[in-house]
């Protein structure tokens, strides 16, 4: 069970949150210049690492804010939490 430290509300139980999937996915564009491969990549292909993963979470039953989490997919240990629009270096969380 995860204890997630919401940057706005502090540590709360995972049942208050919802995971929104991989962070930092960039929409290809302009739309009429992107190839089928680029669209497939954007729509369906995600990083699925066995290890650290950057993902978006929503504090659904709290402040309603989105933020980023770096979390290990094997141990589930959360190594970094940072706000939307921010980035951190690869491995910076661990």
């Amino acid at each position: 069970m995860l204890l997630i430290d919401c940057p706005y509300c502090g540590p709360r139980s995972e049942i208050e949150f919802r995971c929104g999937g991989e962070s930092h996915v960039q929409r290809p564009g302009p739309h009429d210049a992107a190839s089928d491969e680029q669209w497939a990549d954007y729509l369906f292909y995600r990083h699925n690492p066995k290890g650290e993963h950057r993902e978006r979470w929503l504090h659904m039953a709290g402040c309603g804010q989105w933020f980023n989490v770096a979390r290990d997919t094997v141990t589930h240990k959360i190594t970094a939490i940072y706000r939307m629009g921010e980035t951190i270096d690869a491995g910076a969380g661990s």
Partner: protein
Amino acid sequence: MTRTYSALSLLREGFNAQQGWQPAWRDAEPKSHYDAIVIGGGGHGLATAYYLAKNHGITNVALIERGWIGGGNTGRNTTIIRSNYFFPETANFFEFSVKLYEGLSKALNYNIMFSQRGMWTLAHDRHGLEMLRRSANAMLLNGIDAELHDGAMVRKLIPGLNENPRFPILGGLNQPRGGSARHDAVAWGYARAASALGVDIIQNCEVHDFIVENGHVRGVVTSHGAIRSDTVGMAVAGHSSVVAAKAGVRLPIQSFALQAFVSEPVKPCLDTVVLSPATGTYLSQSDKGELVLGAGLDLYLSYAQRGNIPWMERAAAGVVELFPAFSRLRFLRQWAGICDVVHDSTPIISKTDLGGFYVNCGWGTGGFKAIPAGGWCLAHAMATGEAHPLARGFGLDRFRTGALIDEASASGIAH
């Protein structure tokens, strides 16, 4: 020495102090070269190896497994077999699988304990009932038998349902030929039959890397050294992304944990399989007497084979809501399996951009019921280089062309 299992062989071994039984399959050491390599010793991999030998006459096959056979998701699922899908492509494929299961004990000479005890989906509101009606019509149009019953009949046919539930039971859809089988027996039965045809089953052998020359696979590097072959199939659902990445192949898969539980064993009390999407419950009773129940996916990426507590509570609450008599039972075991989740909830059986490398993956939460057909179709692809007619819509190209088979929406799969 006893090679075939029968009533007669039981009798003979009874008189022989049980001395003549042989190990069911050979635990092999790898040779340096094979005609085909199958990675993954779960149900799908073992079935693939068996059908390569049986259907295509390719017997110089290595099946390599990182742990022990049947120890991954084959040993972690709730063993339900059904074909209640919506679109013709998926319905035909899963129905073919159910039919193979029906003849499997005989074909493998191994009792897989397939019990066609029916598989119920319950509706608790008018909209749920409309969805069941739609589902029943789709099944009938696809030539799969289905029975729609009203609430009174559901109560009559399923013992022990709550007399006064919070969510009224308005109706139910039964697939009478659905049911459950013994998961280990499916793995062991395929292993034994494949081994008898000459397949080398190599356990405790992990794939570290792929040997690739000019865009074509030429073998794998394993913890037992290099094994060469120009045809490699992969059936490692749960870790599909991880293994395929070693071959430089990306897959549109995300890995999530799905947990299941068994209660302490009790006397026979539930003679069918019950799924209630509204209460988040599915359960059946094993031959050992344990209630087997499952939860939903933990909706964040995970390779940890354990589930979270909120889902455990929700699954238990759903069971108690439907069957109050089970409220005093205790959980005996809890575990999770890692599921390959694909955007459209339709499996992938496909060639890849790497020549000679074929994948069987993307089973979501329901790979067990597809084991015979999944193995059949991957073996066909590996042997002929072409997709089996039943798996033509299951290629990786669908994510580029947009020709998805969207069972995620159509049959209400919850992920």
